[in-house]
């Protein structure tokens, strides 16, 4: 299919997840949202491929549309 890697690609998911949550510790909701924005833009640059980013946007959008629950 596309160019986005959709298979498991991390050997230490728990460590990475913990680092992510730790980076947000003590931030207000607004500060957290801003951190996420900076993080996404930084990763976009690393990816460096508009097609891959486009597919990732699609995956993230679709997963959110399954409206089984309202976020919070």
């Amino acid at each position: 299919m596309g160019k986005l890697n959709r298979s498991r690609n991390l050997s230490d998911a728990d460590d990475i997840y913990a680092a992510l949550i730790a980076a947000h510790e003590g931030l207000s909701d607004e500060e957290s949202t801003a951190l996420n924005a900076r993080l996404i833009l930084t990763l976009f640059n690393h990816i460096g491929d508009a097609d891959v980013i486009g597919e990732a946007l699609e995956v993230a959008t679709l997963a959110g549309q399954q409206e089984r629950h309202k976020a919070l």
Partner: protein
Amino acid sequence: MLEDRYNLAHRLYPYSRSVDQDAATPAHHQVIVIGGGPVGMAAALELGLKGIETLVLDDHEGVGQGSRAICFSKRCLEIAHRLGAAGPMMEKGVEWSLGRVFHGEREVFEFNLLPEEGHRFPAFINLQQPYFEKYLVERIRQAQAEGVPIEIRGRNKVTDIDTDSDKVALQIETPDGQYSLTADWVIAADGAGSPTRKMMGLGFDGKVFEDNFLIADVRMKADFPVERRFWFEPPFKGSGDSALLHKQPDGEWRIDFQIGWHIDREKELQDENIRARLDAMLSPMGIDYEIVWTSIYTFQCRRMEKFRHDRVIFVGDSCHQVSPFGARGCNSGMQDVDNLGWKLKRVIDGLSPEELLDSYDEERIAATDENILNSTRSTDFITPKSTISKVFRNAVLDLSEENDFARPFVNSGRLSIPATLDGSTLNTQDDLPGAPARSRPGAVCPDAPLDGDFLLDRLGGRFAVLAIGVDVPDFQGDIDADRLMFSKGQFPVLEERYLGGTEQAIYLIRPDQHVAGRWADWSIDAVCKAFGRATGMAEKG
């Protein structure tokens, strides 16, 4: 005075007056274990079977009710097997290795904890804790009949303890009043609220999680498969923010509901309120049930700074406490006993210096920190502490429904696996290139099928040299260890787990079935040196 803190499931060791209570001067015992829970009883068996005179003091007369620990891991069963107690546990317990995780209605993740064959024990059994404890006590009774020097005293509550470098003095309360005892060594296995720890004024620091969980053991006819089921935001509204379901023996099921921090505990424990939650889950499926036992728990992740304090050594929940997600409580306490037993035996027999006991601290504190890390992370995922943490948690769950790549982030508990003692000062550096990492120095020996039995049946209790594809001369006189030799091509699974890509191997294995060192070729000097290191007789460095 001596009031029960809980109701008993089995009254196994009623109080009876001991001659020690009439002694003019305090009677002396080699080892006294404080606390008759699963870890204390396992410690008594471990030491008694090694010929050490061991007295268990418990402030109750038997085992308490409730499924409590419920999930007993493969490693825990291997240890119980070495102590001769696993048979009835396996006969009674419900085996499982599959876990399924749901978000609302949808399954988001599935894990198989033991995807390979060739092990005597399954990944887990579910068994109500009272059975586990009862089988340990029955094993002690059997051992006593064979002359094993263990004694259990019910309704003996330790009220004062004083330790110095050569003995421990205890003050004990009984229905007939106080008496005193002394011991060479004391093992404190008196649980998370450890009175021993408090009497000694020792700290127990860590992190409190602000949530409550309602546990219910219910008897019901249900055709859920035998697997661990966990729901984030369960579809059965009104039960809890998460739910966990386990099958148990006797037609019972164990259900845990996450019910929030700001609750009225007494109110939640009222029958009608418990039923309201259970009804929310079970009524839509038309399931009738009967409540057997309920409790509400909160939890903390914490440990003592050191587990050994002179001649008092802490084991199990008395020195470390974790959240229940991951089955790392009782299962790690059993590993404490496994680690301590042979070391204390060597020290008592004068074969190793007392410093060998410092490696108990070193190795089990490292294992504890691993347990605390894993259980803290699971808890952070299950009960997110902040809005953003919950946003990420739900993002993982949303992605996981359609996207396999997101599933490794789903954390409903990373279930107990045996601690690998990487970095222990007792290990000798790996000298077997190309061999599997799973059997590296520090690891628990992976089990493997042999001639109708299993490798771990033949290891444990004593040091052993395991040789595969290479002859080892008789080394008695140099090293006090058993010798196991297998020729190449004899047992393929054994070779896969111990040789990997190599042709031959020599392993030195500790009495607790952990690998101490491994080599490609036999060298008495190398093995002697490793043996010295593993028994605390070599200079460090």
